[in-house]
C-alpha cells in the first residue's frame, strides 16, 4: 500500500484540525511535516484489518480500541455508549458490565471471585456512583472442581459484603471440557449517581493536576509471577479492592466540577488510561517519572522481565484529574482513606501536543508514553 491510499480515508468526527506550533516563525522542517502527516493519519477512524480475532484484540491497547470502535460502537451506537466510559450514566442511574478471565484463577491477594466484584464496583465508582446491585453470570467448564467454585463464590460474597453490594441475579452455563478454561465470570452492576456530577474523560483542562491513588502495577506483576515459569519470587499481592469509598471521599472534599475525571487503571495500566483521557480531552498529559509510586518489588520484576510498570494492570488504583487549585485538597482526601495512603500527584495536563502522554524521565530526558498495540511482551535481549 502506498502512503497516498490512506490520505483518501474520510476523516471522522474526532479529526480535529490541530495547528501545530513550531519554534519561532520558521517554516516546519521536513521531519516536522512528516510527523504532522502521521498525526493526522493517527486521528482517522481505525478499521479492523484482521480476518480473525487474535489475542491482541483483548489486551486493552490499540487493537482492543479499534475492535470496540469499528465493530461494537459501529453496531450499537447511541449517546450513552459513545463516550466509551467505564459505565453508562442515565439520570441518577449508573450501569456497567465486565467479564473476568484470569489465569491462574487464584493468585496472591485475591482470585477471580473478588476481582469480578471489585472490578464492577470500581467501574461504577469511576462514574461517581454508589454501587447497589450486581448480577453474576458463570461459564463453567465440564470437570471444574466444586471446591474451587465454592472458594470463588465465597470470596465473591465476602467482596460484595465488604463493598456493601448484593448479588441479586445470575446465570449458569456449563460447556464441554476444552471449550473454556475452568471458570469465566461476567458481572454487571447498577448504582445511583448524583446527576449534577460531570465526570468525563473529555473534561481534563490544561493546568489540571493528575493524581494516582497508590503504587501502580501490583496486580499485573503479581498475576504474571503467579503464572509461573519465571522462577522469580517476590513478596507481592494483587491490589484488588473496591474504590467507591475512596471516590466518595474525594468527591465530598472536592465538590462541583473540580474533579474532572476518575478512571481505574486496569488492563493496560496507568499509561493506557491517561492516553484515553488525553485523546478524549484533546490535551497532553505530562508525567514526572520519579513522582509515580511503584513498589520496589514491582519495579524490580519489571526491570527483570523487560516490561514497563506504567502498562501493568492495577485492580485497586485509580487516576483522578482535578482542578489545579483543588490538587492539595484532593491529595489529602485520598491519603486520609485506607485505600489511598500511597496517593501522589504524578503529573499535570498541558495544552500541547494534544492526545499525547509525555514522561519526564528520572534521567532528565523526555519520552512519549504511547498506547500499546497488544500485550506488553517481554524483550528477549
Amino acid at each position, binding site marked *: 500500500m502506498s502512503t497516498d491510499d490512506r490520505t483518501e480515508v474520510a476523516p471522522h468526527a474526532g479529526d480535529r484540525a490541530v495547528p501545530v506550533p513550531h519554534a519561532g516563525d520558521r517554516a516546519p522542517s521536513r521531519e516536522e511535516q512528516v510527523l504532522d502527516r502521521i498525526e493526522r493519519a493517527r486521528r482517522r477512524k481505525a478499521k479492523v484489518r484482521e480476518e480473525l480475532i487474535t489475542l491482541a484484540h483483548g489486551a486493552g491497547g490499540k487493537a482492543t480500541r479499534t475492535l470496540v470502535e469499528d465493530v461494537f460502537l459501529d453496531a450499537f451506537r447511541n449517546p450513552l455508549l459513545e463516550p466509551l466510559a467505564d459505565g453508562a450514566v442515565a439520570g441518577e442511574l449508573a450501569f456497567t458490565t465486565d467479564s473476568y478471565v484470569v489465569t491462574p484463577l487464584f493468585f496472591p491477594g485475591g482470585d477471580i471471585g473478588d476481582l469480578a466484584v471489585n472490578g464492577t464496583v470500581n467501574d461504577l465508582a469511576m462514574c461517581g456512583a454508589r454501587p447497589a446491585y450486581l448480577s453474576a453470570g458463570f461459564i463453567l467448564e465440564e470437570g471444574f472442581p466444586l471446591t474451587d467454585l465454592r472458594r470463588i463464590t465465597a470470596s465473591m460474597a465476602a467482596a460484595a459484603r465488604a463493598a456493601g453490594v448484593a448479588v441479586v441475579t445470575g446465570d449458569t452455563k456449563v460447556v464441554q471440557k476444552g471449550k473454556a478454561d475452568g471458570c469465566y465470570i461476567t458481572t454487571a452492576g447498577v448504582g445511583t449517581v448524583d446527576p449534577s456530577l460531570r465526570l468525563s474523560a473529555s473534561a481534563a483542562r490544561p493546568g489540571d493536576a493528575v493524581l494516582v491513588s497508590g503504587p501502580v502495577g501490583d496486580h499485573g506483576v503479581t498475576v504474571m509471577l503467579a503464572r509461573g*515459569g519465571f522462577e522469580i519470587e517476590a513478596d507481592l499481592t494483587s491490589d484488588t479492592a473496591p474504590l467507591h469509598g475512596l471516590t466518595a471521599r474525594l468527591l465530598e472534599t472536592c465538590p462541583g466540577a473540580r474533579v474532572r475525571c476518575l478512571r481505574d487503571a486496569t488492563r493496560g495500566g496507568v499509561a493506557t488510561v491517561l492516553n484515553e483521557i488525553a485523546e478524549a480531552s484533546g490535551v497532553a498529559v505530562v508525567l514526572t517519572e520519579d513522582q509515580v509510586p511503584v513498589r520496589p518489588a514491582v519495579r524490580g520484576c519489571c526491570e527483570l522481565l523487560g516490561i514497563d510498570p506504567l502498562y501493568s494492570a492495577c485492580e485497586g488504583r485509580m487516576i483522578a484529574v482535578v482542578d489545579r487549585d483543588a490538587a492539595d485538597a484532593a491529595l489529602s482526601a485520598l491519603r486520609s482513606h485506607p485505600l489511598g495512603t500511597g496517593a501522589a500527584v504524578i503529573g499535570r495536563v498541558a495544552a500541547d501536543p494534544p492526545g499525547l502522554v509525555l514522561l519526564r524521565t528520572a534521567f532528565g530526558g523526555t519520552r512519549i508514553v504511547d498506547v500499546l498495540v497488544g500485550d506488553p511482551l517481554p524483550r528477549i535481549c
Partner: protein
Amino acid sequence: MRFVDEYRDAGTARALAAEVAALCEPGRRYKFMEVCGGHTHTIYKHGLEDHLPEAVTLVHGPGCPVCVIPMGRVDDAIHIAGQPDVIMTSFGDMTRVPGGRGSFQDAAARGADIRVVYSPLDALKIARDNPDRRVVFMAIGFETTAPSTAMTLLRAEAEGVANFSVFCNHVTIIPAIKAILESPDLRLDGFIGPGHVSTVIGCRPYGFIAEQYGKPLVVAGFEPLDVLQAVHACLRQLAEGRAEVENQYSRVVPWDGNPKALAVIGQTMELRPHFEWRGLGFISHSALRLRERYAAFDAERIFDVPGGRVADPKACQCGEVLKGVLKPWECKVFGTACTPETPIGTCMVSSEGACAAYYNFGRFSRERVREATRR
C-alpha cells in the same frame, strides 16, 4: 533500586553531557551507530537524546534479533507449526513479526498451537510434559541467546527427549557490522558496541573495525549513563585522533568473552554458508545451523520446510535505515502505511526496531516535547 539507579542519575548525566558537548569540534557533526536494539530501547526509554548536543546523532543499527528474521523464515516456522501434533514455541517478541502470510499471532488464531516461552529450557519442559506432541523451539537471537539454545540441545540429547527439536535462526553480529561498513553510502563516525553479545564473544572480534576501517567502537552497558559514557568515549577517541576498541561495560563484559559459552555453540552449531537478513539481504557466514550430529533435533531436517523466499516489500527502506543512511522518518512509508500495528518492514516490528522506537518515543520533534514538558 541499587545497582540500577546509580546508572540513571540525572545530575551525573548533566555533568557528563557538558563534557560530551565540550568534546565536539565546532561545526563538525557526528553520527554514531548503536548496534544493539537494547541500546535503542534504553535511548528512547530514558530520553537520552535530550542530553546530547545537536551535533551528535545516534543511528539505530541492525542488532534487533527479531527484526532481522526474513519473512520466508517466519513462513517456514508457521508451516512447521501447522504440521500434525506440533507445538511451536518461541520468545514473546516473535508473536507479531509478519511473514508473507501473517504472524504467529494470526496462525494461532487459525488454530496452530503456538506458545510463548522465556527460555529454550521451557520449550524442552513442554516437550517432556507432552510426549505425544512434537515440540519445536524457534531459536532466534545473536550470540547472546545461542548458548542457551546450545545448552538446551545438549540437555535434550543427554535426556533423550526425542520429541524436541530446534528451528535454528541464530545470527552472528560481526558479519552484519561488516556489511554495514562495506556500504558505499555509509557515513558513521563510530560504534556503540553491543553489551550482551560481547559477554559471549568478548571485545577482540571488533578489532578490524578500528584497524581496517579506522572507526572507534565502545562496548557499552544498557543503562542510560552507560550509553552516554560510550558516546563520550567515542568522541574522546576522535578528538585525540584514535580509533580503538574500548570496553565501557567491563563490569559485565570480559575482554576475551565467555569461552565456555563459545564452546557449546561450537559443539552444537556451525556457520551457514549464507543467510538472508531482512532489510540487509544475503550475508555470507552470518548465521548458525545445527551440526550433523544433532540432526535428530533439527526441525529443518525433521520437517519438510518449504524454504521459500519472500522479497522485502518494495516500498520498504529498512535497509537504508539499518545502514544509517536514512533516519526512520525519512522512509517513504514510515508512520503511514508502516506502523507498529501494521508493520511492513523489519525496523517497525519489534519495540527495539529503530522505526518502532522512533514511532513510539520520538515521534514529535524534541523541541515540541521539550516545550510541553518545561515546568
